[in-house]
């Protein structure tokens, strides 16, 4: 499958595992700049619905993308467990608001599979590059470029 090849091209050594609603997501750890508990988010009225707001990241204004909204779930109030995952996109820092960050795991390149058309009957498979099979659960590896492309 093309998608799988793409992953192999990108070479994933580690996956950062996080949760959005009940979706277990993975992100190539090399893309992660930092994981942050700064959730003092300033609302930006009239912004696209998937934008939760902006935060101050050491003097930079960083846009926060609400992963829940992106995947089509209800947005929820900020809670203790939530983390902002900062990635670089188009030369700027963008924060992904996740429900919680679970782990960073080394991966076995053979355990990737193509994503289904829909995840949990709701989330479009377009947002994912592949599914990583782990003992007991499946991790949906997100395609960060696609997610952040408007």
């Amino acid at each position: 499958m093309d998608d799988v090849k793409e992953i192999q091209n990108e070479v994933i050594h580690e996956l950062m595992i996080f949760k959005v609603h009940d979706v277990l997501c993975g992100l190539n750890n090399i893309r992660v700049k930092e994981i942050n508990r700064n959730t003092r988010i300033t609302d930006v009225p009239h912004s696209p619905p998937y934008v939760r707001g902006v935060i101050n990241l050491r003097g930079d204004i960083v846009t926060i993308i609400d992963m829940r909204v992106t995947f089509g779930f209800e947005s929820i109030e900020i809670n203790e467990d939530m983390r902002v995952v900062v990635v670089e996109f188009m030369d700027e820092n963008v924060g992904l608001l996740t429900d919680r960050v679970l782990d960073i795991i080394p991966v076995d390149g053979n355990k990737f599979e193509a994503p289904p058309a829909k995840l949990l009957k709701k989330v479009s498979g377009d947002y994912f590059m592949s599914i990583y099979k782990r003992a007991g659960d499946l991790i949906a590896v997100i395609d960060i470029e696609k997610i952040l492309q408007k």
Partner: protein
Amino acid sequence: MPENIDKEILQTFIDESIEHLEGIENDLLAIEEQGTSTDQELINKVFRAIHSIKGASGFFGLTKISDLSHGMENILNKIRNKELPPTSQIINVLLSSVDTLSSMINKPEESNNVDISEDLILLKGAETGAASESAQAEAAAQSDTEKAAAPISQEAAAPATEGMEPCADIPFSIAADDLTKVEDEGKMLYTIKYDLIKETVDKGIGLLDFIMNLQKVGTLIDTYIDFSLVGTLDADLDSITISLTVLLATVLEVDFMVGSIVTSEDQVIQITKEMLGDAPAAEAPEKEEKKKEEKTEKESSRMPPTSTSDAIHQPEKETQEKEKKEQKGDIVADLKKQLTASTSLRISVKLLDALMTLTGELVLARNQLVQSLSVNDTLLIENSTKAINLIISELQETVMATRMQPLSIVFNKYKRIVHDLAKASGKKINLLIEGESVELDKTIIENIADPLTHLVRNAADHGIEIPSQRARNGKDEAGTLKLHAFHEAGQVIIRISDDGGGIDHNHIKDTALKKGLFPKEQLEKMTKEELVNIIFMPGFSTAEKVTDLSGRGVGMDVVSSNFSKLGGVVDISTSIGKGTTFTIKLPLTLAIISSLLTSVADSRYIIPQVNLLELIRVPPDQVKSRIEKIEDVHVIRLRERLLPLVRLSDVLDVKSIYRDPETGEVLDDRRYNIHDRRGSKEDVSADDNKRATPDRRKNFDSACNIVVVNAGDIQYGLIVDTILDSEEIVVKPLGYHLSECKGLYAGATILGDGRAALILDVVNLCRQLNLGITNSMAKQKMIQKEKELERDAKLLLVVKNAPNEQFAFPLSLISRVEKVNKKDIEITAGKRDIKYRDESILLFKIEDVANVAPIDDEKETFMIVFNMGKRTSGIMFSHLIDIADIDIEIDESTFQQPGILGSAIIYDKTTLLVDLYGIVNAKLEEWGIRTEAPAEGAQHLILLVEDSNFFRKNIKAFIAEEGFNVITANDGVEGLEMLEKHKDSISLIITDIEMPRMDGFEMTRRIREELHMLSIPIIAVTALAGESAEKKGFEAGITDYQIKLDRDRVLASIRKYLSEVKK
């Protein structure tokens, strides 16, 4: 280009060259202007600049740059020697070469691939064509063939100073004098070509030894290395040759050289007088490309002169040409490139030193702080914090200063642009530049070039008419385009004005209609200014045709949004047939701006100081009387004007909050109408003002906070929940995902508590709301309302004596309001008096005359001090309420009694209007005191025409007080009747403008035209003098305008005109 060149040195070369080129452009234009009488020094300057570019580019092996600059140098040399007149044709060729040169210099690594043949041919054409006065192209071709025939050419010339005669086939300039000198010493002059590799590497001797060897046999005058033949690093090492040409003066004959310093006779060329003679100064400055062309011509037997030696680049040629044309066509793109390309900056050493000193101080202060922290000395900590605070402020200023650059960087480019535009459109345009030394932040300078150029281009292209049309309109054939920059109120103002045809608002109306930007009815209702402002709307371009020089599809909307991105605003004023002026207000710097912090709900929003006009807090009990709704727009009455209001919470679609008056609880504010606090969905009309009961919700926290902002063509009020503080903020850009809502925000910043806050773009916000234009209906009504306001607006001092009785005095009649201590009041013979400014004045109470509740017995009261004739009197009151600037309807009958003129509803309360003069006169009469009329006035009879009882009484009172005899009339018709009756005795007329039956204008006209009383002074009194009304009045024959209750000025005016009548 050799790859081993130090990038840093190359950058210096680029910077310097760009600097040179910038100067050259304007100098060339000046040379053209001055013609043959050109200042020699100016030409020398250009020559030197080009020459240094040539020299340096030769060093870097940038052959094309060197070739082109050499070609330019030749022409300049001829101009310098007066062999070539600096015609505009020649200057144009030079200018276009400057363009090519600067585009090459901006990308030096690609410069050797640029096709410069066209420029070279043009240069040659200009050089020879002008001399032989034959057609350029022909001349170019011809000169080429000539050159092919005569094998005299030259490699890049060494520094050619005046008097030097460059000669043939040698890369050196040799003066005939020098040759003579050499010959006088019995030596001969040779150029010898070596392959340096062979001479040194192969023979195993060092470069120095090689040179020494040469020095042994003669004098080494000059050397030249042709880098173009060196090849690149990746070339085969064995095949590399370094061609070195030396200029040697020696006594040796060629024969003797062979074997000693050369291997073959072919290497040597002897320089003779004849060779110098063959290439006289006029023809001489040939260059290496000629030689190359010659070579190609030899090789490919007469290739057309348009081809170049760079045969390898032929396939690319077409695209390159295309590129070049594009570059040439779009001066703006070039300009922008140049401006944005500057990655390095020159700053004065003084500034740098200042920075260093401050940094040093900062280090010391830090040490102090660290030390004081370790000993935990609060006083020391405080001191060092203060010191750091000071140093950082100063540091900030100094760093900002390093970023400041003069506007001349941008302005000077326009000389060329306007010159080219004028040429292209056959217009004559004088460009005046003022204030080019005004400095702005580098970022702003870089970013205003684009929109400014657009405006300049528009002015030249569409604004200024063609000469014939100008002449027809009785204007000077040459149009004037003026760029003017200056500082004003911490901002920089740039004005671009032309004396062209102006913008026809009807034309805009038609276009807007055609393009369907607005429905017809709406356009019909728009004012002239609104119509003109349509040009800033997206999708509007009035250009009849898109010329090469105009628009390019970029509209004025882009111009406006470009400026607003920089925190600036554009304003336009135009007058048909006279010209157009664009006024741009810009902040000095972008990085740090002053701003106002406001909040709506729990979010804070920032409004840049640039856009800020004033802050208004409307107390809760006035919200209803001051804020109204017209159509869909809320407006506030602000100094006789109506200002549209917008609730920020509505704009941003967030919940507004307010504090509950009783519980202090924070609640959502669900008010639908600002002026009505009952949350009803219906518009509540102004009739509510008449409710005499006090408003239940007068509460501090439900006051209305309004930030009045300036958005270029329109001012409006933003209603916010709270106004917090003013703060200096650092502007940060918003990310990619928020680009869609950039119309609302100018960026974001980080506040003191570390949270991000959004900066509002009030200019765009207003455009998005369409406040200015689409609410034309509302605007019309507003104008109508404003007119009404003008008629009745008066400033009233509102006071209270007893809790339920409110009084008002016309403020203009009062000289002062003073606090009175009860014990200072003396009662003598039944009269109250008080010391006031060294004089004893009589003090009255309203209840002395009128049947009203007695004054509250307070320890401290107030008094109104006013003048009546020569007498100063005071009237006491106990509570000061406010100064009301409102529209009131005076009821003259209900409360009619002595001392009271009438009543009105002010702040929902029945308020009695006090008759100041009435009270005083009544009491004085009672006491038997007569005010002695000044003798001067008695002989004059003044006719006062005024429909309002209130004003009539007041005005009559203060005029009569001065001793004039006054007769009154209620309107224009009555006035005319009175005038006819007392035709000879009336010496002056005072009239109101707005009156029933016949207004003041009409009456005046009739007095002048029908009664033929041309010389009688007619003073019009209005509530507020408006310019247009004044003009209309003067046309009708009114002598003077005064504000109704401005006693002193009305009296002064009366005296002035009466004395004129006497004469």
